[in-house]
């Protein structure tokens, strides 16, 4: 998008990701979404008097993996207490990292070639969830407030970008790429709708070559769509204020998805004084080189490299094929495409089938072996199966398992014999003399008309390519 009158937006993002650990950050309670309220709690994550935190080593490993994936310096770090009263904070302070985060100074390269700097990626604990009952829906004036502490103490990493983002699409690409990395390295399940990935955006506007404007922080961005809409709305709002001669207050704003606008949550003067100080119940976190090396060695190939590797298997990939490759990598379908490449099959066809048919039934992949995918693609490539039939076979394999040849046979996808196809085409030409004449006169569009008739007559068993060959031979 272009902003009016030469304005430029400046955006920095804070992405909170819940780490995919078995247990919480400081206790042995299960880190699980969707359990009965207050069923995953203990004295530690409830903040009962006398309880003490013990740092989860797996969470540290995942935090380091994020640091490596984002090209950060992994450094010795400390934990602080962020003090404020809120019912979903069991201790009324949050244990977080403050002046010495575990990961500092990295960057993330986006598919469009731009680079966004990462200031830090630090560890902290999540809070519980409060539901305020009553007309206000907020803490003040609520009739009753219900708190679920299952999420309390779930490990989070907060990834803070530099103010390097210049438009909503870039913000979207940044979060999408980050999400893809977090999923690939096993740090997060990346589910924005469940809140396991949450985004806050710092937005300001200025004219190029002038200092940055005052920023506003937008909370509650729970989807990529919200993110782009909110950033765009907020930049335009700020421009309106500035062009009317007003000035921007530094404040935290809430994004209302239904109304499509941001509104003031609290201004800077009302901001809490968090009284940060070192958490005396934890010791310094100083992973030794051997531990860091193990985490680095265990890091899988990152999405950008995987996309490059798959694209290298295609000759002059189209934009659609590149999008297909992105989907394949996002959904971790690389092995299927690579299998087809190893069997010297049609990689472009493999990308198309993976990015569409496999992507649509992602949760049923266990039923489909790479070998059976390779076979199905080969059958389509050779004309043994039509495109429609190949899709049906894949759908059946994903649904119920089995091998492609048997499924094709059971579905009656036997190849029509050349004689039989030829006879059918001859009958249809006789029945539609005007169309045949126009085709013969050079109107290629009518090929589609005849293919349609053949398919109908053969109940989809004919191969489109074979029909065209038959038509051409009679032309």
């Amino acid at each position, binding site marked *: 998008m272009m902003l009016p009158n030469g304005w430029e937006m400046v955006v920095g993002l804070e992405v909170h990701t819940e780490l995919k650990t078995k247990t919480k950050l400081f206790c042995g309670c299960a880190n699980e979404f969707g359990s009965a309220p207050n069923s995953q709690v203990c*004295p530690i994550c*409830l*903040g*009962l*008097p*006398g*309880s*003490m*935190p*013990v*740092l989860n080593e797996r969470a540290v490993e995942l935090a380091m993996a994020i640091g490596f994936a984002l090209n950060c310096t992994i450094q010795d770090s400390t934990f602080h*207490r962020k*003090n404020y*009263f809120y*019912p979903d904070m*069991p*201790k*009324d*302070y949050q244990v977080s990292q403050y002046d010495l985060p575990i990961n500092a100074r990295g960057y993330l390269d986006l598919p469009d070639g731009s680079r966004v700097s990462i200031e830090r990626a630090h560890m902290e604990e999540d809070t519980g969830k409060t539901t305020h009952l009553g007309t206000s829906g907020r*803490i*003040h*004036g*609520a009739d009753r*407030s219900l*708190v679920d502490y299952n999420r309390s103490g779930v490990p989070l990493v907060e990834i803070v970008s530099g103010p390097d983002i210049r438009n909503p699409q870039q913000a979207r690409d940044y979060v999408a790429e980050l999400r893809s990395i977090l999923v690939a390295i096993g740090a997060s399940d990346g589910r924005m709708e469940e809140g396991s990935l949450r985004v806050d955006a710092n937005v300001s506007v200025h004219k190029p070559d002038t200092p940055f404007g005052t920023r506003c922080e937008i909370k509650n961005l729970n989807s990529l769509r919200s993110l782009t809409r909110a950033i765009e709305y907020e930049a335009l709002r700020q421009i309106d204020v500035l062009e009317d001669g007003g000035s921007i207050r530094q404040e935290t704003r809430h994004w209302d998805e239904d109304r499509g606008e941001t509104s003031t949550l609290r201004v800077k003067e009302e901001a809490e*004084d968090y*009284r*940060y*100080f070192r958490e*005396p*119940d*934890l*010791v310094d976190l100083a992973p030794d080189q051997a531990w860091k090396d193990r985490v680095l060695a265990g890091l899988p190939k990152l999405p950008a490299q995987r996309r490059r590797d798959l694209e290298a298997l295609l000759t002059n990939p189209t934009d659609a094929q590149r999008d297909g490759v992105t989907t394949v990598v996002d959904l971790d379908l690389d092995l299927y495409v690579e299998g087809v490449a190893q069997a010297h099959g049609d990689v472009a066809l493999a990308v198309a089938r993976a990015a569409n048919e496999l992507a649509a039934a992602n949760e049923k992949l266990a039923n489909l072996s790479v070998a059976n995918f390779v076979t199905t693609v080969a059958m389509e490539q050779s004309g043994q199966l039509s495109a429609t039939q190949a899709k049906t076979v894949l759908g059946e394999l994903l649904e119920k398992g089995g091998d492609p040849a048997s499924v094709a046979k059971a579905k009656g996808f036997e190849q029509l014999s050349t004689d039989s196809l030829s006879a059918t085409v001859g009958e249809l030409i006789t029945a539609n003399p005007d169309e045949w004449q126009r085709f013969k006169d050079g109107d290629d569009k009518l090929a589609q008309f005849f293919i349609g008739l053949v398919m109908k007559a053969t109940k989809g068993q004919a191969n489109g390519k074979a029909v065209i060959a038959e038509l051409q031979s009679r032309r």
Partner: protein
Amino acid sequence: MKSALEIAAAVRGGQSALVAVEESLTAIRARNEELNVFLYVDEDGARAAAARIDEQVRRGEDPGLLAGVPIALKDNLCTTGIPTTCSSKILEGWKPPYNATVVDRLVAQGAISMGKTNLDEFAMGSSTENSAFGPTRNPLDPARVPGGSSGGSAAAVASNMTPVSLGSDTGGSIRQPAALCGLVGVKPTYGLVSRYGLIAFASSLDQIGPFAQSVSDAALLLEVIAGHDPLDSTSLPEPTPSLLAHVADGVAGKRIGLVRELVDGADEDVVRAVNKAVETLKDAGATIVELSIPELHLGLSAYYLIAPAEASSNLARFDGVRFGNRVDGEDVTAMMEATRTAGFGAEVKRRIMLGTYALSAGYFDAYYGQALKVRTRMIEAFATAYQQVDMIIGATTPSVAFEFGSKTNDPMAMYLNDVFTIPTNLAGEAAISVPFGTGEANLPIGVQLLGPGRSEARLFAAARVLEIADGRA
């Protein structure tokens, strides 16, 4: 009452654990109303535990190093299903769902908890006058304070209700009442004893430690509760030191520093006792080195910023949401305010305000940040001293036990009671108070022995020399 060592030996030898338990219950019945030592007496639990230990002995099993030894627990130690109040209205009636690690370790070695003892609310005080459930009286002179904050645990042992007890020491809360009640009291090296289940006052300073009538009982008790705990990240990884075995090691060849700043300002009778202790140790073969550590004078100011700062955060969770008392309000915020206003006493509120202020933006560097620097200097100053000497000697308190109300209107006068004990907490090191002689009104005086981290065995050996010379063994 017999010593813990004697009781354990008798019980392991076949004497019923009920004997000591009944003796303890009788002593509690006799004086608890007068002295206000126990907030909760677990009569049934103690008898049941004694029966279990007798059964173990009958089956030929060893019930442990503290077999059948009655013990009193400061009421800031969590005990499963037993009220744990911190002497605060805000926690009145709360029953923890878990035991502090030290409690589990005591039980595993056969000790029998008689109940929970009074303290200054949330361990904030030096006289046990700040308890929401009334002050504890000094068994040696009921017109005087037992010291604090572990006044109840000190009084339990001083009145022979139990042979030993546990307290917690953040700035002197074990050593000061031990001195005022004529007992041995130990502030172990930070991290030697797990804090898991100790309701925190100031987490970087708190340590749990023993009270006993004798050095040997104190060493035995500390040996049982010490050692690494995976539930406390700040607990030391090293194996539990052997303490009881070294009690008789003596001080021959040891270099002991007499530190001027740990005697300056003490009453004459206290100074006399320290000097006599120095002579005793010299006679036992130690070399005395006179030292000055000027940094110790900065301890009190640094402590009264660091401890309240941590307390302001540690006590935030007492908000009426999940446990303890709740005073309703029109919404959650109002409920929290009303709960804390009604639930906390004046001294606790004073320290929460002090600590909140010290941590606030704009004041942090001038107060809390400065105090941390002082703390670092204190650690370095002690380290330098311990290059010259093996341990340090000084007074535990400036005076013998004082009368009720004599310092309650002047918080600074009360705070000054901890001037000799605070530096050890700031440095995270070890110290023992051992009774040595008497002063005004024939009340006991405590002499303090300080050492570097994990020097407890050395300190017990020196304390034992003083104990023998004092005719207490």
